[in-house]
C-alpha cells in the first residue's frame, strides 16, 4: 500500500496526545519473544520477535589466518539481509543500502563494545584464529529491524557453542560445551524515530514510513553504560536537546532489554 497523507497526519495528531495506533506510548517497546535454536547446524541461532517483526540471527565459526593488523585476535564479520519474503518493498538481488547499513551498525556495536573477547578466539598468534560470522535475516519486517537484529545478535552469541577441532581442522557439526568468550557489555541498538516533533521507539513499518528523522544509538550495558556507535538517518535534523533525550532514553531502554533477555535466555 502506498503512503497516504492521511496516516501521516493521523500519526502526528495521535502522538500529540502521546498515543500510537496500537495503543503504545512513545517510549514503549512491543512484546519481545526469543526462541532458539533455529538451526541445529549453527554454532548458535535465535529467532527474535518484536511485535510482528521477526528476525533470525545465526552464528557460524571457522578458522583461518588473522588480519595483518590484529595478529592476536579472532575475526568478526556481520552480514544482514532484508529478505524479500519479509516485506514486499524488499527486492531480491545484491544487498540493498538498508541491508548494508544494518549489518554495519550491528557490527560496530558488537565490535566496539568488545562484547566478544576476540583475543580469546586466537588459537596461535599470527597463524590461526577463529572467524566468527553473525548473519542476520528478516523473516517479517514490521519496523525496527535494527533493534530486533541487535537483540538477536546478542542472544545468538550468548547461546552459541564453539565447534570441536581435530588438530587445526574444525569438525563442523560437532560442538564442545564451551561458549563463545563474551564480556559483560551487551551491545544493544536503540533507534528513535522523529514524527512531527515527537520521538518514538520501536516503530512499526507504517510509523517508520512517515518518520522524517532517525537516530540509532549503539549502547552497551553491563558494569557500566557506554555508547559505541551512533547513526543519524533520514534528512530531518534534530536539536541538541532531542539528541540528549535519545541518549538518556537509550540507556533506560537498553537496561530494560538486558533484564528481559537475561530472563528469556535462562
Amino acid at each position, binding site marked *: *500500500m*502506498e503512503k*497516504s*497523507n*492521511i*496516516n501521516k497526519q*493521523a500519526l502526528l495528531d495521535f502522538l500529540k496526545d502521546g*498515543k500510537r495506533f496500537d495503543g503504545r506510548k512513545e517510549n514503549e517497546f512491543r512484546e519481545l519473544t526469543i526462541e532458539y535454536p533455529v538451526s541445529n547446524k549453527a554454532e548458535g541461532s535465535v529467532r527474535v520477535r518484536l511485535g510482528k517483526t521477526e528476525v533470525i540471527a545465526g552464528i557460524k565459526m571457522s578458522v583461518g589466518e588473522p588480519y595483518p593488523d590484529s595478529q592476536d585476535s579472532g575475526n568478526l564479520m556481520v552480514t544482514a539481509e532484508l529478505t524479500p519474503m519479509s516485506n514486499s518493498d524488499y527486492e531480491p538481488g545484491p544487498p540493498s543500502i538498508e541491508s548494508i547499513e544494518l549489518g554495519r551498525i550491528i557490527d560496530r556495536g558488537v565490535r566496539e563494545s568488545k562484547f566478544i573477547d576476540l583475543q580469546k578466539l586466537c588459537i596461535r598468534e599470527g597463524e590461526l584464529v577463529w572467524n566468527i560470522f553473525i548473519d542476520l535475516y528478516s523473516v517479517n519486517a514490521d519496523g525496527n529491524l535494527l533493534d530486533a537484529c541487535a537483540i538477536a545478535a546478542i542472544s545468538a552469541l550468548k547461546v552459541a557453542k564453539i565447534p570441536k577441532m581435530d588438530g587445526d581442522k574444525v569438525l563442523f557439526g560437532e560442538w564442545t560445551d564451551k561458549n563463545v568468550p563474551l564480556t559483560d557489555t551487551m551491545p544493544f541498538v536503540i533507534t528513535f524515530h522523529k514524527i512531527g516533533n515527537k520521538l518514538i521507539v520501536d516503530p512499526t513499518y507504517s510509523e517508520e514510513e512517515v518518520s522524517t528523522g532517525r537516530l540509532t544509538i549503539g549502547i552497551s550495558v553491563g558494569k557500566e553504560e557506554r555508547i559505541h556507535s551512533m547513526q543519524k538517518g533520514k534528512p530531518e535534523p534534530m536539536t541538541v536537546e532531542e539528541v540528549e533525550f535519545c541518549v538518556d532514553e537509550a540507556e533506560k531502554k537498553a537496561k530494560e532489554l538486558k533484564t528481559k533477555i537475561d530472563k528469556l535466555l535462562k
Partner: protein
Amino acid sequence: MSKDKNERAIVVPGEIVSEDSSKLPGENTYKENGKIVASRFGVVDDLGKVIKIVPISGVYEPRRGNNVIGIVTDITFNGWLMDIDCSAGGFLPLMDYPRFVNKNDLEEHLRIGDVVYAKIMGVKKKGIDLTMKQRGLIKIEGGILIKVNAQKIPRVIGKEGSMIMTIRNATGCRIIAGQNGLVSIRGEDKDLELLTIKAIRFVEENSLTSGLTDKVTEMLTAELKRLGKKPQIVPQEESFGEAEESSESKDNKTEGDEE
C-alpha cells in the same frame, strides 16, 4: 470437504465439492468428470443450482461497479494515477472528478498521497478506470486509513451495511470500507477511533464465525465500559456513504447471511 473449527466448510484447490452432476460450476470452481471441483482456497457456497467458492484470502480482484479507496501515486496531463492495492493500477480521469478541473490545476484538487473513495467503471488490461461522479464518492480527509484483507470486507460491511452500523453506533466514527480492503475511519475521539479499528480487526479475524454481530457488540460494550464512554448512536440521516455500500454487499451477501 470438512468442517474446520470455524464452523464453515473450507476447501482447497483440487478438492471435490459436489458429486451431483446436475449442479453448475460457479465462481472459483470447475467441472470435471461430472464433479464440481474447487479452484481456490475458500468456503463453499451452495446456492442451489450453482456452487461457488467464496475466497477467504488473497489480494483484491477488481470488479466493475465496486467502490474502492485509492491513493494518488502520480499526476498525468489528464488525470491521476492511483494505487488501489491490487494487481493493476487505477486511473481517475480529470473528467471523472466531481468538480470542474482545469488541465493545469490537477494538483490543486488531488496531490500525491491524497485518498479518494471512487467507483470502478472498467477493468482493462492496461489498468482500472475510476470515477468519482456519483453520490457518496468523495475525497477522504482526516481520520485513519487501515488495510483489511479484501476478502473479509463483505463481513466488515455486513448485510445491508449492518456490521458497520453496529460498530458506528458504538463508537460514533464514520467508516468507509472500500471493496479493495482499504477502510477509512474518522471520529471525534482518538480512543473511539482506535476502538473502531479494534472492532474491524476483530471481524476480520473471526470472519468465519457465526453469531459474529453479537460477539462484536459484546466486545464493543466491554471496551466502552473500560474506556468510561457511552455508545454514540448515530442518526440514520447522518450515515452518508454507507448507503452505497449496501449495493456492494448484495454481491457478497452469502457471508453476511450467517447473522
